[in-house]
């Protein structure tokens, strides 16, 4: 934030004022209030940064400034500063074919990965250092051999075609396949990964799949090996050609050399393809994942088989169990039925007995009621008719009603009351239609 400008003057220091180091603390700030600040805006982000990283204002300013400066520097300085080999500096420009162009420009760490921009910048850097005029000015000799090497290297590397030719035979970029022994120590992926990465530079198809690691899926691994067995390489061996004599006089000689070169190239290409093939074979043979996948597949197959068997076994067991259960259930049912039968028989007998007893009570009641004859002895006809009527009622009612009737009669000794009970019962039966009115004359 911009500084506050205050135009009013400061007071003059009073006479005799003194303080340690010219500063005198007197009071304290009042207590602060906690409030929520709104998490919005660029200044809040700065605040959040300071708070989260526990930086003070000046620290944050410095770190931010450094971060900004670095961005500018990145564009400028690269790591294109490799120490120069004194032997390299002694090179003759005429055997440029044998020189390591990347080493000349000081970008051996990039090699085929170096971008055009990096090459250009490396070239500029070297030119600034090795320009023959500078050397001459420094009192040296007119030695421009290394400068020519630089120019040649740049010429090769900045021409895409020539660069590919050179990259094809750049031995320094090759990674030798590791020995079997080395891979058995468990660093298969590390060692072979580098090999395939280096070989992958010749691929016409991109992206080149990575070797991956022990966690790679089966699909990835298969894709990887398929890619390498059908590898399409742009590698050429023109760079190693013998120089074709550049004279018109000896055409035969020229053609002969050309043919020889073509043959040599073809031969080398075939060799290279075979070499790559063997390399992939070796890797495949050593790859633990292939074995693992096979094992997994077998395990799965076995598992399926085991599962099937288990399933069959389980089904058989279940069937047997079901049968057993059924038999058990049946037996239980039969037993229950039998018991029920016995029970019902007993109940029937009991009911019969009860009915008999009830009937007895009813008949006794008639007798108690003096055969509905009021006082005095009843005539035989009267007795007969009343007994007939009661029997009629008894035949018309079922056991429960009989029991109810008995209950009503129980305890009653008075003839009129007993008669009334019978009358009510007869009336009820008439109501239900089981008895015709007037059928029970003695109760009339």
């Amino acid at each position, binding site marked *: 934030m911009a500084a506050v400008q*205050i135009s009013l*003057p*400061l007071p*003059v220091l009073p006479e005799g004022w003194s303080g340690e180091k010219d500063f005198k603390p007197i009071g304290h700030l*009042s207590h*602060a209030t906690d409030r*929520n600040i*709104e998490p919005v*805006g660029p200044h809040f982000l700065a605040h959040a940064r300071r708070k*989260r990283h526990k930086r003070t204002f000046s620290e944050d300013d410095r770190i931010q400034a450094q971060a900004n400066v670095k961005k500018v520097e990145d564009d400028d300085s690269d790591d294109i500063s490799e120490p120069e080999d004194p032997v390299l500096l002694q090179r003759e420009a005429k055997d440029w074919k044998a020189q390591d162009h990347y080493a000349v420009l000081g970008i051996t760490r990039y090699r085929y990965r170096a971008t055009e921009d990096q090459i250009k910048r490396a070239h500029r850097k070297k030119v600034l250092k090795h320009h023959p005029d500078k050397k001459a000015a420094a009192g040296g000799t007119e030695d421009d051999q290394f400068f020519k090497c630089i120019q040649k290297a740049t010429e090769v590397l900045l021409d895409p075609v020539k660069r590919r030719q050179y990259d094809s035979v750049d031995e320094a970029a090759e990674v030798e396949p590791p020995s079997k022994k080395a891979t058995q120590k468990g660093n298969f992926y590390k060692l072979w990964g580098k090999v395939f990465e280096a070989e992958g530079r010749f691929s016409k198809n991109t992206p080149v799949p990575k070797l991956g690691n022990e966690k790679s899926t089966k699909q990835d691994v298969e894709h990887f090996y398929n890619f390498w067995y059908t590898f399409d390489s742009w590698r050429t061996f023109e760079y190693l050609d013998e120089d074709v004599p550049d004279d018109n006089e000896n055409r035969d000689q020229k053609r002969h050399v050309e043919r020889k070169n073509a043959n040599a190239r073809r031969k080398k290409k075939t060799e290279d393809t075979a070499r790559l093939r063997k390399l992939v074979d070796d890797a495949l043979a050593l790859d633990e994942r292939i074995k693992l996948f096979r094992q997994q597949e077998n395990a799965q197959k076995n598992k399926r088989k085991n599962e099937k068997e288990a399933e069959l076994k389980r089904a058989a067991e279940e069937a047997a169990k079901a049968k057993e259960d059924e038999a058990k259930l049946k037996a239980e049912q039969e037993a229950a039925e039998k018991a029920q039968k016995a029970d019902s028989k007993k109940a029937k007998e009991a009911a019969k007995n009860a009915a008999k007893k009830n009937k007895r009570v009813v008949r006794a009641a008639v007798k108690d009621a003096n055969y509905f004859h009021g006082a005095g002895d009843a005539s035989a006809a009267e007795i007969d008719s009343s007994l007939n009527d009661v029997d009629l009622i008894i035949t018309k009612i079922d056991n429960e009603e009989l029991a109810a009737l008995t209950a009503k009669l129980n305890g009653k000794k008075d003839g009129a009351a007993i008669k009334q009970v019978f009358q009510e019962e007869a009336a009820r039966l008439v109501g239900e239609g089981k008895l015709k009115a007037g059928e029970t004359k003695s109760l009339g």
Partner: protein
Amino acid sequence: MSAEADPTQRVAIGISFGNSYSSIAFTSAEGKAEVIANEDGDRQIPSILSYVGGEELHAGQAKGQLVRNTKNTVAYFRDFLGQDFKSIDPTPCHQSAHPIQHESTIGFKIQDSAEETENTVTVSEITTRHLKRLRISASDYLGKNVNAAVITVPTNFADAQKDALNKAAKEAGLEVLQFISEPVAAVLAYDARPEAKLADKVVVVADLGGIRSDIAVIASRGGIYTVLATHHDYEVSGSVLDQALMDHFAKEFIKKHKSAGDPRENDRSLAKLKLECEAVKKALSIGTSANFSVESLANGVDFQATINRSRYEILASKNFAAFARLVTHAVEKANLDPLDVSEIILGGGNSHTPKVASAVRNLFPESTIVLAPSTSSTAINPSELSVRGAAIQASLIQEFELEDIEQSTHPAVTVTPHTAKAVGILLISGDEGTAVFHTIVDAETPLPVRRTAIIATPREGGNVLLKLAEGLRHIKITKPEPRVREPSSDDEDDESEEEEEEVREKTWKVDAVLSEAALKGVKKGAKIEVQINIGHDLTVNAIFREVGGKGGVRGILQGPKVTQNGSA
């Protein structure tokens, strides 16, 4: 989708989602926020959805359906999000689909498919559909698939409502980077202008919306915002201004066509009247007179009338005054005086109305800047304030991981101690009674803070005394009789020339002296730089030095004895 989580694949916009209108904006490559118009060309996109025979109409087209297809048109639903039926106010939806209780949330019974059956659509589903349409509009405009957004919400939006909105946005294919409150977004929109200067100020953001008004008092301290007070009102809003116009035109209509009846008594006539009145209100914000014209307003009778701005201002004068009162009320709530307010930002569609701005203007001193189209030519369109702020915030945090954003917005970071009193320096005299206090660090400034001041020295140079103190703001009321004012360094005192009126001015009183320091042998005409650092534990670290000179004095003032539990 993994692409959404990947900050590099993010295309983020700002969304302002209001009850009446929504808007969308993005930040261009030059860092300017630009509001996106939808396919109808509207920058203010009505938050309305309507269904006709299974076809979904959105925004302006849906608004037209309010008259004919009332039952299947959903409007004013933002505030229903994440609420239960008991706590909502369904009044604004009177002329559209009515909200009903649906399980634990709120739904609308509408025919949203080609079939004749009515479906219950929850408010979050409606919101999803609305946001989807906004997203499509933005994607079409930008030519890139928009997948993230910063959405503005009112300051009183509860967490449940935010959660519901977040879910609805996710369904619509938008990753919500952050919810920011509307008033803060408005302040950010103004502060992000290239000509804006960073200053310590108190800003009042008054948002006069369609169905509610929100006022927030915000302390802006070096670009960090703290909300000091908020005030929400559901009575004073754009709809009452519409109502005033509606009553006026309805009376006019009855006067002319006695037999046709009152258009306010018929739902359809009322809807037509309301739509036209809203248009008239907008027209009156721009021109001094406007035409009201509705075909078949009631009983097949057409109606045409004109109204001029002053008539409208008389009709709605009560409401304008009420709105201005809301603003002062919020300022009081924050324990501040109108003199403390340095800016008033008027937002919301109704702030286009010139009378709203002038009503607020009259209640505040001259020194307060009122930012509205009618009072300031450089004001940003009030309808676009919050969406612009959201777009700026979106561009700021677009590249951040979601986790990073969450951590930055965590209370551990946002809860900050604020100074209780202003810290400043004594000028002219070293004596507390006669000295002039000038603030360097204002009250309510979040800690830690660093402020620098450049101060003039006595004419002849020499030794100077630097006395830091805490000051209290004091409102001095001067009665009409002219008297010599105390020289005050604040700018607020130019308005005191008018006579016959009591003059209020802002002065500072020294509350407690903090420290004294001396700079000796200052050159003639030199200036002194004072830098004050206050840590979160209230430790003051002061540096005094002559501008361009060497050495200087440093002093450390420990915080109060009773340790505050301020977070680190």
